[in-house]
């Protein structure tokens, strides 16, 4: 299965595009997405600039609500990654 990860804030370092397609094992949840994201960050040698992102980010569903780690992802679902915020 695959999810579309909409990038915000520091996570934009991961790609030049707004959305990153991520392949996941079937029946994945947010926890699996965190693990896969952590591997992508390591592979791209971005551990220094995106330190802890996979652990500290929240994720929004298509309804713009925070989803917990046990949230079951659907194939082709659009998920937003919400790195730690700091506006104002």
């Amino acid at each position: 299965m695959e999810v579309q990860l909409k990038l915000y804030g520091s996570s934009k370092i991961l790609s030049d595009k707004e959305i990153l397609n991520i392949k996941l094992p079937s029946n994945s949840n947010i926890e699996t997405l965190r693990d896969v994201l952590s591997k992508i960050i390591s592979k791209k040698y971005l551990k220094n600039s995106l330190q802890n992102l996979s652990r500290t980010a929240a994720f929004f569903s298509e309804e713009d609500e925070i989803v917990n780690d046990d949230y079951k992802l659907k194939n082709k679902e659009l998920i937003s990654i919400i790195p730690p915020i700091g506006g104002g």
Partner: protein
Amino acid sequence: MALHTAIVKTEEEKISSEKAKNFILSEENGAESIFVGRVRNENNGKKVTAVTYDVHDKAVIKSFQSICIDAKSKFDNNANIFLEHAKGYVSVGEISILIAVSSGHRDEAFKICRFILEEIKHKSPIWKKEHYTEGNEQWLPGHSLRPKEEIK
């Protein structure tokens, strides 16, 4: 009473304090408090030239509305509130956020202004990327929205 919240795309327009002052004006409210946040030319010893603000538009507007309604119910239901935040590239000296409040009395006006600013920092999905004189740039660390019980 009146409430205005918006995200202002900096390539299209600038945040206007005149617009804010006109919006909150009311004969019933004798106190006005206006907070203007501007991009500073220094942070942690680094010389800053600009900040790019990234925003999750829908979630930010939702959070702005919720924060303002909360502020009114806590301090003064008759307050008028104007809140705008920039999205995009903002040069040093330009406005990144403007909060304008009119209320019956000064204490409530100050408190509402401060409350809104602090709540935004902890609830609204907005991110800052600083640009430095050396030509490099950096996303700034912030406050995690991940449910606390899940962070190991």
